[in-house]
């Protein structure tokens, strides 16, 4: 058993960090929206799903069927990134406009907003299963089956640490996620709009007195959180090479777990929670077998909530810098 662990711990750490980076990117959307609205955007998992299909749509449009390399690969990746970020970010903005803002205007309770979110989530899943996947992705009557994504580049070992080979796809995921996180951190902590977002999450009424347009801050928050899910969507499609109408569901729940683990409302907590969840899942799988992965993930959530209800870094964008 211990020998197993020692021989597998390296690779499973790399794999864990890669999955964790994807959880973390999705977790950002939950955490940002929670920060400004104190609302769990249940449909965020479908925002992710939309981004993943947007990436596949562009891949098909470009007629890509096999691995690329060189400048073609770089250009394609940038284009796909743009497409999935735009699709997810745009969908999140529309979602806010259609499913949340009307309720907010009428002073509805957060519970009503949560139900609206669940409704939007089911609507989007079924829209893809019944209409978009059969029509746009040309899989009549198989809208609920998996849709394959072609391999975008050949997987190779870039370097090795001890007996652990570091593959280019894992490296790419981790680097891309970290770069996006740093950009987001700078945006929230160093720009004027970022200060507006933090002010809104700490005290919305006083923020209005400062001249902050809350509606526009909320829209921006959905846009940015959605775009981060779009990045995750491209990375996921590239790594796992299979999409489904409900591809967001389990990932969404895990990302939400990551957000709670790190401290919901806390951006750096989302990163920490995501990476920790990925690592715990993968390390745990060595002992219990990978079929226990999801059980491990949610046991962790329950345990954390039991002992630290506010998560590891505590609640809220408030303390993003303090």
């Amino acid at each position, binding site marked *: 058993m211990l020998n197993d662990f020692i021989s597998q711990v390296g690779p499973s750490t790399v794999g864990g960090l890669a999955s964790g980076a994807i959880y973390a990117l999705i977790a950002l959307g939950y955490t940002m929206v929670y920060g400004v609205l104190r609302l769990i955007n249940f449909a965020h998992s479908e925002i992710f799903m939309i981004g993943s299909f947007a990436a596949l749509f562009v891949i098909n449009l470009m007629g890509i069927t096999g691995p690329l390399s060189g400048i073609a690969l770089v250009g394609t990746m940038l284009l796909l990134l743009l497409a999935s970020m735009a699709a997810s970010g745009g969908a999140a903005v529309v979602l806010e406009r259609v499913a949340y803002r009307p309720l907010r205007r009428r002073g509805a309770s957060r519970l009503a907003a949560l139900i609206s979110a669940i409704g939007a989530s089911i609507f989007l899943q079924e829209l893809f299963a019944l209409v978009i996947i059969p029509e746009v992705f040309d899989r009549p009557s198989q809208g609920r089956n998996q849709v394959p994504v072609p391999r975008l580049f050949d997987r190779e070992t870039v370097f090795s640490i001890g007996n652990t080979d570091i593959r280019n796809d894992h490296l790419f995921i981790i680097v891309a996620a970290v770069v996006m996180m740093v950009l987001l951190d700078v945006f929230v902590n160093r720009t004027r709009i970022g200060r507006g977002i933090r002010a809104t999450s700490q005290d919305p*009424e006083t923020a209005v007195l400062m001249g902050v347009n809350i509606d526009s801050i909320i829209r921006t928050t959905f846009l940015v959180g959605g775009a981060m899910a779009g990045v995750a969507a491209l990375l996921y499609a590239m790594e796992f090479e299979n999409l489904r109408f409900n591809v967001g569901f389990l990932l969404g729940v895990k990302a939400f777990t990551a957000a709670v683990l790190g401290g919901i409302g806390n951006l750096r907590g989302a990163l920490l929670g995501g990476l920790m969840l990925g690592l715990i899942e993968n390390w745990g799988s060595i002992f219990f077998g990978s079929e226990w992965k999801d059980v491990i993930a949610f046991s962790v959530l329950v345990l954390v909530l039991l002992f630290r209800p506010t998560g590891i870094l505590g609640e809220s*964008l*408030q303390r993003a810098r303090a």
Partner: protein
Amino acid sequence: MLLEIKDIHVHYGKIEALKGVSLEVDEGEIVTLIGANGAGKTTTLKTISGLRGLSSGSVFFDGKDISRLPGHKRVLVGIGQSPEGRGVFPGMTVTENLLMGAYARRGDFSKDLAEVFELFPRLAERKDQAGGTMSGGEQQMVAIGRALMSKPKVLLLDEPSMGLAPMLVAQIFSIIKEINARGTTVLLVEQNAQQALQLAHRAYVLETGRVVKSAPAADLLDDPQVREAYLGGALGQH
């Protein structure tokens, strides 16, 4: 008139918090609005700054009807507010809090920051401390300094003395006087009627959503009814 409120009615659901309040503030004045807890003082300020909508009546500022102007645009026309309970952003540093006051403006704020730090030297010493960890008096300074960062024509202050030790209250009130002397009009809401009346030029007394008295502040200090209700009864020197 810089600020003119005409017969405003404001509701929370079915509860009518303001039942036809009218008041005026002229440029350069300190006007105080006193009244017991629940009289509607905070609601009046929130209506002026656009946090609450009104059911009827109107708010004029600088000659324009701003009754329907969204709250976040009112700071631009020149209304700055230090809200009840201070509303300091707890996770932002003192400097960040002050910069939030200038959120709606563009340009370089270093001169304005320096001015606030000159008015409140204590804040300069604490400029990198998180707002949430400051004492009550310091938070009140942040709230007033932050409102000044918007370069307001009128400064609305909601119970700046609340929860402060007498020495600090005296300090805050003398700074309010200084701010007014430098040219900012002040509308001061207080339960601490004695000191508010000593500071202000004119005063309004609010009772359960209605203005029941308005007079020069000095007159109200000698008014037996006001003494009875808000100044602890017995005649004495002030």
